[in-house]
């Protein structure tokens, strides 16, 4: 009896542990990514950090695209909604804004071709506000990532101007 009980309990435990590990892994890796992104800036969450195109020395995130210039923001909606706005780079440059939940899901993405103008403004919220440009985040924390393709070195001034135009701030709900 003890043999059967021990074996069955072990199998059930092993099964449960495997699935728990599988479900927890993305959350743990995302927490690590958020921590690493926060470590390269001094301003904390809810502010954008503007990077340059990654090189072999860039090791904060796996599989970076060397053709993209990134602006990233680790957000925390504990204090209220997050409003992100700014200008896009000159016409012809790929631009996108992605929002990632704390479990790594890319729950929202917007690119330059989907915008009627060369500017954008969105509000990230924990609740469904029912307004145009208001995005509900499935989790309290996450990452906002803006990507711009740098095709050649001459593109950089236009990209940097776009980065500098980005405004990000918390508004009380």
């Amino acid at each position, binding site marked *: 009896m*003890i*043999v059967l*009980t*021990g*074996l*069955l*309990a*072990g*199998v*059930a*435990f*092993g*099964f*449960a*542990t*495997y*699935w728990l590990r*599988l*479900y927890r*892994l*993305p959350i743990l*890796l*995302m927490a690590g*990514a958020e921590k690493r992104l926060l470590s390269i800036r001094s301003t904390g969450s809810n502010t954008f950090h503007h990077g340059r195109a*990654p*090189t*072999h020395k*860039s*090791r904060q*995130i*796996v*599989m*970076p*695209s*060397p*053709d993209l210039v990134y602006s990233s923001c680790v957000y925390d909606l504990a204090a209220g909604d997050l409003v992100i706005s700014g200008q896009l780079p000159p016409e012809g440059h*790929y631009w*996108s804004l*992605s929002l*990632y*939940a704390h*479990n*790594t*899901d*890319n*729950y929202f*993405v917007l*690119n330059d*071709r989907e915008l009627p103008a060369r500017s954008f403004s969105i509000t990230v919220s924990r609740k469904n506000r029912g307004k145009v440009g208001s995005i509900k985040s*499935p989790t309290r924390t996450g*990452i906002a*990532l803006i990507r711009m*393709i740098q*095709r*050649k070195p001459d593109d950089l001034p236009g990209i940097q101007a776009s980065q500098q135009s980005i405004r990000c701030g918390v508004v009380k709900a």
Partner: protein
Amino acid sequence: MWDVVVAPLVFLTLMLGGGAIGGWLAERRAQTNTGKNPNEIKLGAWTTNRLAGSSAANALTRARIATHGILAMHRKETIYFFASQDDLGNPLDPDHDWEIRGRGFDCRWWSFTLYDEEDQLIESPSRRYSVHSDNVAPEADGSYRIVISRADPGVANWLAAGNARKLMVTIRLYNPSQAVLDDVRSVGLPSIRQRDKGPAA
């Protein structure tokens, strides 16, 4: 003695053994389900997952993407293809030279990037980490040929393998066409073959 020492020890041993079996069974079941998953697609040397980055991804897909490509975008925005083997199934051994041959893709912008065993960019003397739709040097017939090697092969489209111990190539298709989104198999992926005359990897 039996009740206090032996029985708990036997129980613990069996639990540990059972735990290992349970973990193995769970992993096997997850892998089998993934093999049956129509969203996980293998096309020649290349693999892609239709649910990468998506909220509809299952636990195993999410864990894999988080491990090897965290912050991947939804397929509407970018489709990713990965290859760590050639067309014959041989691992892309960095001690050999490899050649990728194909044609452009039906999307807004595409790129090939080479990564090392840690999924990081590889140091390149040319500081060129990718071949993409803007910098590719096409052949006379409009196709392209990309060479992966440690030493400079003297071709325009070179991706340096540097001191990497393992290699993985990633294709990114930004804003793929509706035809590609509807049927990712129609994309027309390139071949990967060993280029040098050394023994097969």
